[in-house]
């Protein structure tokens, strides 16, 4: 079913919308959640919660890209669950590795707590991604948005894991330099 029709069903408050969303995007959502959480049961709960959040957000929202919109919800819930699990000393997944890699981008930086700084940082990241070649942008998003494993990315893009790691490292360095040029004190 087309996304527009699914969104329309949400607006019409038809519960079939949830079923259709689940049928179409369950695998997609589970991948995101499992990548972050490394735990299928927790991932399943997050995906179910995401469907409820989606139901509550549409309307008034009317997403143009339902997959990305839903993916963001799942990612958010999964990260929150990850933090919760971390506090409980359980769980794992790709997130610790992803965080470790991102650490070098902002090592020593200050003042990102302010909302305006976060917005500016987001603008910079989007601008940075816009300048990247499509393939590298996809690699970056797969790793740092979807939290895909290096192995999965390598298979998806038909590259060696080593090649993926090296490419990501170069992109991180590039982003690091890009942020410095735009005023971040790193």
């Amino acid at each position: 079913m087309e996304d527009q029709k699914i969104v329309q069903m949400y607006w019409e408050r038809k519960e079939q919308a949830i079923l259709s969303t689940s049928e179409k995007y369950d695998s997609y959502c589970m991948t995101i959640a499992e990548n972050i959480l490394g735990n299928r049961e927790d991932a399943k709960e997050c995906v179910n919660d995401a469907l409820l959040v989606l139901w509550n957000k549409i309307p008034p929202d009317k997403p143009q890209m339902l997959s990305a919109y839903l993916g963001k919800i799942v990612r958010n819930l999964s990260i929150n669950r990850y933090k919760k699990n971390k506090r409980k000393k359980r769980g794992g997944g790709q997130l610790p590795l992803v965080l470790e890699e991102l650490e070098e981008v902002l090592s020593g930086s200050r003042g990102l707590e302010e909302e305006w700084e976060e917005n500016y940082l987001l603008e910079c990241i989007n601008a940075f991604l816009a300048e990247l070649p499509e393939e590298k942008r996809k690699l970056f998003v797969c790793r740092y948005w979807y939290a895909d494993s290096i192995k999965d990315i390598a298979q998806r893009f038909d590259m060696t894991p080593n090649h993926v790691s090296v490419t990501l490292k170069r992109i991180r360095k590039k982003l690091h330099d890009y942020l410095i040029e735009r005023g971040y004190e790193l």
Partner: protein
Amino acid sequence: MKEEKLLEVMDGIREDYIAEARTGNPKKRSKKLFPLVACMVFLFVVAAFVMPHVQKGSSYKAVAAEKGKEEIQLGATMPSILYYGAGQVIMYDYIGIWVYDLKQEQLIGFCDFRPLQMTQIQGEPCVFVDASTDGKYVRFYKSDGSIKYLYDVKKDSYKEVDDYDKTLSWKFTLEDVTETHRLSDHSETYKIGADSYLSYKIEPEGDETIRYKDLILVLEKAGKKTTYRPFTVK
């Protein structure tokens, strides 16, 4: 943690980038991995081009010889090594799957992707290729799940399937150690055991165009290296 903050900020990246990352699979092999795989694949591919339905035996020699004359593309479509075990190496590229026997020093199997319209190992939907853990089968299928094939290595035959036998495992991988065991600019090396490595390198003669015949397999065990030229018929 700053990295957690960055991760959260990235939640707001453009939705088209998020969607884009899942809508296209460039399916580009790294040059390091591709050379070895490509070499082997090309060997088999050469055979495939010449004799798409060749049988095991001497007919593969003709295929290998003919394919050896063809040019290797050192790019995204270079071959890949899928499997090593029991004296066999399985490779593939966009043309098909090849099986090379290290003892017989010749091709012993080939599955041609072209008549099946499964040559698109890049783009969307693309064709994924995996070897079974035991090396007896190779599956190749479109990323959208619309078409699935299973190649039987021993029988050297393929068939279309609705789904893959769940008892089959597809987790075979080789550890890429090219960074520490690089043989040349166009080479890849995989660790296949303690102090054992399988590599391929492409060594063109002079300034000639690089062809499949320039592909050399190198099997190293306890420091002793044995070379094979899949596309050069003795």
